[in-house]
């Protein structure tokens, strides 16, 4: 800070007062400061076994059970006996690279999963993979693992369930924990002609793709993909909602009524767009077509035309 006394520029020494004003002057800087401080504190603590169970639940349990049988992916009970630790760690770190590399075992399990690719978990490290494998090993030794699979009551679905599922899918009924409605990103059979979202995959054949009700139920209880996880991690679907949605997915997969090629709708949209524009232009020319443009220029033009003839 420079000070001018009389006409002399004095030294720019900062006082304590000047520095303390820094926090007041810039609220943004202050907030950043405290946030960084908080982050440093938060990273210090070691991962507890409770945390690793949580990690497994969030990232693995939707496709894998431990001792409950095959879900979308294979049962992980005693998985460490199937391959060595190093192979597992490498597979967890990047499943796609492993399959692409032509590893025969990786290709075999990929085929078994009906070509559903295991997701690369964001933020996965070799240490975390090791921790997870340790955890799976420990859980495998138990008589009944907490991840042995929840027996979901999947009685026969009624038409009412499917109808409720449609309501949830389209967002007409709000999801209990305020998660965003499916239709924002997904579509099923063009959702009655309204097209639905195109951001996420088409869910018409999702039950078949994920190999059955059990798997999709499990998947929905803790969606593992990065996009879904960010939305549903803290706003999970409840059991009743999952049931309704699965019922809806199943019923709509076999519904031919709306199961048409949605490009027809796009063509209609384009035609309506052109038609609407044309209508707008006609309307505008009706309102403003006779508006006043110029006086002198037409006079000169007219006289030139007359002069030539």
């Amino acid at each position, binding site marked *: 800070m420079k000070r001018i006394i009389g006409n002399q520029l004095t030294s720019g020494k900062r006082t304590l007062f000047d520095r303390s004003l820094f926090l007041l002057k810039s609220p943004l800087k202050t907030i950043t400061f405290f946030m960084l401080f908080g982050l440093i504190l938060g990273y210090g603590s070691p991962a507890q076994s409770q945390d690793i169970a949580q990690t497994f639940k969030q990232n693995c349990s939707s496709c894998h059970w431990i001792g409950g049988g095959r879900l979308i992916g294979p049962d992980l009970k005693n998985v460490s006996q199937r391959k060595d630790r190093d192979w597992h760690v490498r597979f967890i770190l990047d499943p796609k690279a492993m399959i692409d590399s032509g590893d025969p075992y990786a290709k075999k399990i990929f085929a078994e999963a009906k070509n559903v690719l295991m997701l690369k978990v964001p933020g996965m490290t070799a240490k975390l993979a090791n921790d997870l494998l340790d955890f799976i090993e420990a859980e495998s030794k138990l008589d009944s693992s907490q991840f042995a699979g929840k027996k979901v009551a999947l009685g026969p679905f009624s038409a009412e369930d499917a109808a409720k599922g449609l309501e949830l899918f389209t967002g007409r009924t709000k999801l209990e924990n305020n998660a965003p409605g499916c239709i924002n990103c997904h579509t099923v059979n063009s959702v009655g002609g309204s097209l639905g979202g195109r951001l996420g995959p088409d869910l018409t054949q999702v039950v078949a793709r994920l190999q059955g009700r059990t798997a999709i139920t499990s998947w929905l209880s803790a969606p593992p993909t990065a996009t879904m996880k960010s939305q549903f991690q803290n706003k999970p679907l409840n059991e009743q909602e999952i049931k309704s949605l699965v019922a809806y997915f199943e019923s709509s997969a076999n519904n031919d009524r709306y199961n048409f090629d949605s490009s027809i709708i796009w063509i209609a949209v384009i035609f309506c767009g052109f038609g609407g524009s044309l209508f707008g232009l006609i309307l505008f020319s009706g309102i*403003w077509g006779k508006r006043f443009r110029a006086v*002198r*220029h037409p*006079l000169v033009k007219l*006289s030139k035309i007359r002069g030539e003839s």
Partner: protein
Amino acid sequence: MNVRSQISMMFHLDKCIGCHTCSIACKNIWTDRKGTEYMWFNNVETKPGTGYPTKWEDQDSYNGGWEKKNGKLRLKSTGRGRIIPNIFHNPNLPSMDDYYEPWTYDYQNLFNAPEGDDQPTAKPISMVTGEYIDIESGPNWDDDLSGSPIYGENDPNIDGLTDQEREQLFAIQRLVFFYFPRICNHCSNPACVASCPSGALYKRGEDGIVLIDQNRCRGWRSCVSACPYKKTYFNWSTGKSEKCLLCFPRIETGQAPACFHSCVGRIRYLGVVLYDADRIEEVANLPQEELIDGQRSMILDPHDPQVIAEARKSGIHESTIKAAQNSPVYKFVKTWKLALPPHIEYRTLPMLFYVPPMSPVISSFDGKTVDGTSEDLFHDISDSRVPMKFLGNLFGAGYTGKVEYALRKQKAVRWYRRAITVGDVDMATAERILLEADCSVEEAEEIYKLTSLCTVEDRFVIPPSHREEAIEALQDPMTRKQEAGFGFTAGPRRGM
């Protein structure tokens, strides 16, 4: 009765020589700034002609002024409901082409041109784009006769003329024309004031001068389209509209406005008239043929004791009443009925009046020579080269009666003066002609004096403005005590 005073104007067209000195005087004072290049608060038009902007009298195109709708007055250009479909643009504005593209000349070239076979020329440069241009029109293009076959033919006042009269007009455009100087009319029912969405325009209470408050103007340009005389202009630099201010700083110091002061032909007269503001609406609503009489009846006799008493009650200063009694405009308009308002059918009740011009006798063309002789020197006015209908369209709301009356009286005064000064006409004939023209000998003498021998004091009767009283009505004049300044310290500019 609600008596108001108005600084009113009268232009004696029979004296105008079309020298444009008024326009230049005005231009040099008011519109030589950036953004005002194309503006002429005062301009002189040649009639017949289309004027500036082109065909400004054609209200079917420009939609200026008022119209009667279901017995009520409404603006032609805009209204509360009608503004909605046009809220994003103002559809009735003249384009720059209809004014003209302002230009200057490349004078430097006269000094700096390299040596060549020919004389260097100063090429015209657009003041808008800065590029060399071919001049296509100008503010007095008709006068320059550059395009009269185009422009003269399209004068809106030609409407309703017979074929014979039209033919006569073709002769006019080559052989005779008259000048029509125009400034803001400072109307008593101004369309510009009525149209302004910001309320920036106002008619000054003490002298009726119509002004645009540069602090309140938001550049809607409604006034430009609403004024049927196209006498408000948009300044593209400041984003505000501007108009003739009747040189109010000069009026307030007892001087005539610049265009009046500089007038070479001494055609311009300025004086106060008192009028009844309660009757404005009623008069503006009259049928077209009654408008001129209506406006005349609205203007009050300043000698009438009742009018004087009412004027005092309205707070009009004694000196203003006295000025109204000496007003040359009052005499021309009301006493002698010589001066007529321009296009009163636009219903803005203009407070600028014109004495219609005399013109030579119709000449006949036999294919070889033009015969312009007449049996008597002061031919009957119906033989004037300018058809009565044309003048009637311009000054008589489409009717010729008032124009003929004014011309006949002017002619009678000439006969009378000729009988005195030349003597080749006997006085008895002159007096008979005066009688026919509804003019007494005393009146003729007075008209002659005020037309031909008028001094500055006769032409301009400007009362002390008593600005302090006007200010007092709105604010404490002592707030300005011990302050110095010239009004604006920062000029008007775009934005709030």
